[in-house]
């Protein structure tokens, strides 16, 4: 019986949705199934992990928050039963239609004092554990390692300060392809909660996160870690986590940051220490390979192919997949003065961005080869047939 209780909510595939859409008969049944039954069985639902309540999570902080949350919740439930109980009692038994005659009492200092002081005492009792948890979670000292997190419109950059590893994490292409396509959506396990490159972290280490932003305010949030912290442009905030259990933990940006705010997920992959070290080694090797790529000469065909990839992951969210932009907000690529005009200006704006606008400085984000490819692509796609071919060496010298 209770099989239905969590699985539809847990299951990312969620077939019920489409039954509802497709047939009106089932719509009725589903409302009963998902609304009335849960209401009747609500205690089960309250404790169903991930369904309708907070998760306990995998850090001491997230568990403490969960404990605090449940404490306040039950305090509220107790007060609600008391207050609504008295109300419902009078609504049933003190009705005029039952012949109830109104009393005339309207004042009692003693009663007023009691219901001022008792809630005050309850609040003080809640404040103690809340303060303890707060002090603990704000103490970011004695970290084993540090990861700097930078928010961009609309992706995250992760810098492993101790290892010198740095990369960007975008919404996975599989999710992008599913935004307008229900069939693709159904095939995905984690629609909108998957990235092209995960933040890999070791378990059992006290990790300090530094949050900042390149443009607007973002907020880095992974529930299972008990971490949510605003990333403010020009300032650095911090938070910490010590992950107990290997696994994949998902979150997303929690502060409205513009058009694609809903499309900047966070995926943390926690690995045992040894596996984490292997991953670090691989990252360092890959970094070397990328540096080598910027030394060689590329064919126009290769540049265009690579450029299209970079364009769709990095540029298309503002300038549009077909280069049309959004009038009045983001300029078009098609026939743009920059993309069809002076090459130096084009390279400059891509490298250094344009201050006072959403155009970022991609020189910090992309390697020479990727920059060369994407600029070549922009100058030859969307009918911008300039014929220009930009080599990585040109970018290197323009930096």
């Amino acid at each position: 019986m209770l099989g239905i209780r969590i699985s539809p909510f847990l299951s990312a595939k969620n077939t019920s949705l489409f039954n509802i859409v497709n047939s009106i008969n089932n719509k009725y049944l589903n409302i009963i199934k998902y609304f009335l039954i849960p209401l009747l069985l609500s205690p089960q639902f309250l404790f169903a992990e991930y369904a309708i309540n907070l998760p306990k999570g995998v850090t001491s902080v997230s568990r403490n928050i969960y404990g605090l949350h449940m404490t306040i919740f039950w305090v509220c439930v107790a007060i609600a039963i008391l207050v609504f109980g008295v109300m419902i009692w009078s609504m049933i038994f003190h009705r005029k239609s039952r012949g109830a005659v109104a009393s005339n009492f309207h004042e009692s200092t003693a009663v007023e004092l009691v219901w001022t002081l008792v809630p005050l005492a309850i609040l003080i009792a809640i404040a103690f554990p809340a303060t303890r948890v707060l002090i603990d979670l704000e103490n970011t000292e004695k970290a084993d390692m540090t990861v700097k997190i930078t928010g961009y419109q609309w992706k995250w950059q992760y810098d492993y300060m101790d290892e010198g590893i740095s990369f960007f994490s975008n919404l996975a292409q599989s999710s992008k392809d599913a935004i307008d396509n229900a069939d693709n959506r159904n095939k995905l396990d984690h629609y909108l909660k998957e990235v092209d490159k995960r933040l890999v972290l070791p378990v059992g280490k006290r990790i300090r996160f530094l949050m900042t932003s390149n443009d607007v305010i973002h907020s880095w949030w992974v529930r299972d870690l008990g971490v949510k912290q605003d990333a403010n442009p020009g300032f650095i905030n911090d938070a910490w986590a010590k992950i107990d259990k290997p696994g994949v933990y998902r979150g997303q940006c929690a502060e409205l940051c513009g058009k694609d705010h809903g499309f900047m997920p966070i995926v943390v992959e926690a690995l045992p220490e040894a596996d984490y070290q292997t991953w670090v080694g691989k990252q360092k090797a890959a970094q070397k390979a990328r540096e080598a790529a910027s030394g060689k000469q590329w064919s126009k065909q290769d540049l265009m192919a690579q450029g299209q990839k970079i364009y769709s992951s990095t540029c298309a969210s503002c300038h549009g997949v077909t280069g049309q932009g959004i009038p009045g907000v983001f300029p078009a690529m098609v026939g743009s003065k920059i993309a069809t005009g002076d090459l130096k200006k084009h390279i400059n704006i891509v490298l250094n961005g344009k201050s006072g606008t959403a155009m970022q400085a991609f020189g910090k984000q992309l390697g020479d080869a990727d920059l060369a490819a994407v600029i070549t692509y922009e100058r030859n796609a969307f009918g911008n047939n300039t014929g220009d071919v930009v080599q990585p060496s040109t970018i290197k010298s323009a930096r």
Partner: protein
Amino acid sequence: MSTTTTDLQDEIDALGKSHDNHHHGPEKGVMRWIKTTNHKDIGTLYLWFAFIMLLTGGAMAMVIRAELFQPGLQLVEPQFFNQMTTLHGLIMVFGAIMPAFVGLANWQIPLMIGAKDMALPRMNNWSFWILPFAGAMLLSTLFMKGGGPAFGWTFYAPLSTTFAPDSTDFFIFAIHMLGFSSIMGAINVIATILNMRAPGMKLMDMPLFVWTWLITAFLLIAAMPVLAGAVTMMLTDRNFGTSFFDAAGGGDPVMFQHIFWFFGHPEVYIMILPAFGVVSQIIPTFARKPLFGYSSMVYATASIALLSFVVWAHHMFLTGMPVAGQMYFMYATIMISVPTGVKVFNWVTTMWRGSLSFETPMLWAVAFVILFTIGGFSGLMLGIAPADIQYHDTYFVVAHFHYVLVTGALFSIIAAVFYWLPKWCGRMYNQKLAKIHFWWAVISVNILFFPQHFLGLAGMPRRIPDYSLQFADFNMISSIGGFVFGASFLLLTYIIVDCIRNGERVKEPRVWPSAKGLEWTIPTPAPYHTFDKPPGKELILAESSHTGAH
């Protein structure tokens, strides 16, 4: 005893007759409404404006809920979705809830304190007539190049400065004008209450609706200039090269949030204190029992108002505030639940051992007490700083503030209209239909907002046009609730229009026989001019809802 009653009755009759003898009625045609300085006309204008804005903002909510009906993007682009959430919030706060309460104040305060009119009638006209222009300017941004404001009703910098569309300057001007209107309205309310009370009416004789509005008006005067300051700094950051909110020029984006919420937190009490007043008028009437703890209600309202100025940063626990700051704002915030609790306990005790009946206004008032209290509980949870880490900027917050603003503020406005409308127009609405409407709205609003608690705890952020599939079921339920709740307003429109045009005529001054208050001593419908001669001291005391004269 009987002689006193007869005297009072004579006085009531005299009040009714006096207006027929030597007063002209309203002007004819549209100029009546443009030039009017009559508090009743202006109250009516405010209420209709608020109602139109309510439907406009509601239509935007329907767009939001339709897009969120299923995962994926079906109806609107993300940029337009953000414009909808932004304008929905702004219009509901500044266009619907606040003007509706000012409308109620205009109609009721003079009637409840035995005054002829508002103290500053010409300014009253002006403060209303700013509103349609401000509202139109705000809405016109939707049709401008780059679209309307898309940065949320809280318009955090730098999304609202460096990264905002050009139309933002029109938004800033609209906010300035709305602020002027509110401040003028508030000055008028204070001047009226302090100067125009019938001779012999002490402050502690005033009905609670008047008290709560007096305190609200002070909040408005203190808070609205702060908002004007915030948008002015935005304006200069955007156009004149300042960097109040830009770290590159020595500013700080978090300072914007401090300034915004220094306005924003009193603002939420601006929208709920008059609601407390309305409910404190209605419950005693239909419990047939004086309001319990009148003076503690007044003191609780005043303490809520004072506390509202020292808790603003509980909206900002995650901005990187020092831990001592978080502690202070947590303690101050949860303290607010003490006076708020006092109010709820007083309403419940007023009902206790009363002689209850459930006419339409009472249904709405009871729904208010229960549902507002639920919003209060989630507010207490949000006030706990460490727990806020998991709640902040999720649908849990959306559920919270819709419980206090829709089932709180809006429900109280609907209750007030059903309570006083017969007095205003001398006609009774279709009570059966009104009760059907009540149940329709109260059930659907819970289907709409209750699942949003679950969505928030399950991890869905607010202000997103698309979501991962584990949120699909509750979003669909919430949307269905939203459509049904939205449709209930069509019935509400019908009930009100039908009442004004064809409703059964009511003649008794005391439309609700158990109601107390000076407004029930004047004839029904309320004549164009009332209280040319102020009511006497004895009448004031007899109608005072809290002296135990019931």
